[in-house]
């Protein structure tokens, strides 16, 4: 009796909690939004009905948040948190099993001289390296993330993209980083982008009913405007993205603080509107501890505490880890460290 009463009036009261986008309840929460994704016209109306972005205000806000001074114990906390949020990435044509294994070893013990350093969140590789990474990380609890769907350009037919995704999942990937079809998005075919994300999300399902988490890469450097970033964020979240990610790291403009701030605002607003929590992953171009801390400040001030964990915020990076380790050594020993004291990847 009370159950049906609660259900009947659920839409009138504030949602008590948010649920994770990868959970089973997420679909239920998204159901009320079904009408905006019912047709191409409805989706277009909705996305174009989102408020425009105040570009100057956004940049100023991002710049202001970048001026916070984080020192001593707070800095130590931020460094450890940032290390635990890293998706340690190698996406080179020249990747070998040996290189992937070395990277995995580094992910487990980022600083072999200091066992108190936390491990990273995930190792991000190409699909053919998933099995190697999975074996190297067995028992560590570190996830294996795999890019898929014809990364980085996304220029392939849908069946190819889905096969790419299924291969990676079958090889043991815990997370799939897909790229959207920027050409379709920029030419206004929103529904085709939406359907593609849904199809890939479906392909992430495993036989046992669980699913690999889906990160959707926008390649914001190619989307031209902040308005587009806001639209594509909502589009991906409506389609069921578990994470939204800025860039592939393969174009000249990668993650920037304003774009990440905009995406953080989008996940915050999405959680408020639907009760579904989606993660954010800036990737590419984040190389220094100072940058990483700026992003963490932004997360805390925009999305809030609930996002300050590796489950909901990630850094797609490779060289960032070394800088974090050097800063950590400086904090613990009092003397400046150098590149001779971290690994060359």
């Amino acid at each position: 009796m009370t159950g049906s009463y609660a259900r009947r009036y659920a839409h009138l009261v504030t949602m008590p909690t948010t649920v994770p986008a990868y959970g089973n309840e997420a679909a239920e929460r998204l159901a009320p939004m079904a009408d905006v994704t019912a047709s191409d016209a409805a989706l277009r109306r909705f996305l174009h009905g989102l408020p425009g972005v105040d570009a100057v205000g956004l940049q100023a806000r991002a710049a202001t948040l970048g001026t916070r001074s984080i020192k001593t114990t707070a800095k130590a906390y931020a460094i450890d948190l940032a290390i635990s949020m890293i998706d340690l990435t190698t996406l080179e044509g020249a990747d070998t099993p040996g290189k992937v294994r070395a990277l995995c070893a580094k992910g487990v013990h980022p600083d072999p001289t200091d066992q108190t350093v936390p491990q990273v969140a995930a190792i991000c590789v190409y699909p053919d390296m998933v099995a190697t990474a999975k074996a190297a990380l067995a028992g560590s609890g570190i996830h294996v993330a795999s890019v898929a769907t014809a990364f980085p350009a996304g220029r392939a037919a849908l069946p190819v993209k889905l096969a790419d995704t299924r291969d990676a999942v079958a090889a043991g990937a815990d997370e799939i980083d897909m790229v959207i079809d920027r050409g379709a998005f920029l030419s206004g075919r929103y529904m085709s982008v939406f359907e593609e994300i849904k199809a890939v999300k479906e392909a992430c399902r495993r036989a046992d009913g669980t699913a690999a988490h889906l990160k959707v890469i926008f390649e914001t450097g190619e989307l031209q405007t902040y308005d587009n970033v806001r639209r594509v964020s909502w589009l991906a979240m409506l389609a069921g993205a578990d994470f939204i990610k800025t860039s592939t790291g393969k174009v000249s403009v990668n993650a920037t603080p304003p774009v990440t701030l905009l995406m953080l605002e989008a996940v915050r607003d999405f959680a408020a509107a639907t009760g579904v929590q989606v993660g954010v992953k800036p990737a590419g171009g984040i190389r220094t501890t100072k940058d990483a801390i700026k992003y963490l400040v932004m997360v805390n001030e925009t999305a809030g505490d609930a996002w300050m964990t590796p489950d909901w915020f990630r850094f797609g990076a490779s060289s960032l880890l070394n800088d974090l380790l050097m800063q950590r050594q400086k904090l613990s020993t009092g003397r400046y460290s150098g590149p001779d004291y971290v690994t060359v990847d």
Partner: protein
Amino acid sequence: MSDARLSVLKTYKLFVGGKFPRSESGRVYEVTDSQGKWLANAPLASRKDARDAVVAARKAFGGWSGATAYNRGQVLYRVAEMLEGRREQFVAEVADAEGRSGKKSDTAKAAAQVDAAIDRWVWYAGWSDKIAQIAGSANPVAGPYFNLSTPEPTGVVAVLAPQESSFLGLVSVLAPVIVTGNTAVVVASEKSPLPALSLAEVLATSDVPGGVVNVLSGRTGELVGPLAAHQDVNAIDLAGAYGELHGELAVAAEKAAADNLKRVLRPAEVDWAAAPGTDRMLSFLETKTVWHPIGI
């Protein structure tokens, strides 16, 4: 309208990575001549400026050490040419720093110092492609091998410039470090840093790649600690820690430097006017020995 021009005073700045930044800390200190008359404000560098300078020096090391010795010699000779062109400015600055501005005998002394400094720079420039011949060797070994030892630069060298000889002393410690392919972070004389900061302008305009020489001004006592303890500094020249004032400083610096086995050049009494010899160059070299089979 009056005929008097408003004087255009120079803002002395640090020299880090080929750029002229103010101190990260925003601090400056007053520089006076020997009589206490104000000359200029110099930046008061902080440990973070020292850190930035080391990063810049490390970044420049690959290119500078990889340049041919002949090329390095030419670049350094070019520095001497530029110094010659700015001779009057350096004479005035050295006279101010070490004597009384405007006094004739002090100016003559300063001129002699500047001339000696330029000559020394040329002398060191010539050593760039000759040092391997006196510090390297072909070693006789019992086997069908060529066995060759060659000197290589040690890396990033922190240099505390002499406190008293603000220009000749500075050139005498800086030139031998960079001629062999090291990169340098120089802490200028605390009391009279202006000639060093002006030398940076010369370096910036004479083909020396940015970051090969980085000049900091400020409290020697404040900067030596972070530099001596820095894990990415390969050697330290403590010339500027000589004398009663800095005796304890040198001991502390040596202890900190031992942590990553830096090469340390201990402070000693040096007559900067005397012929320098090759000691300072040889202090910041590593020997690489290669075995190569003799093809028959």
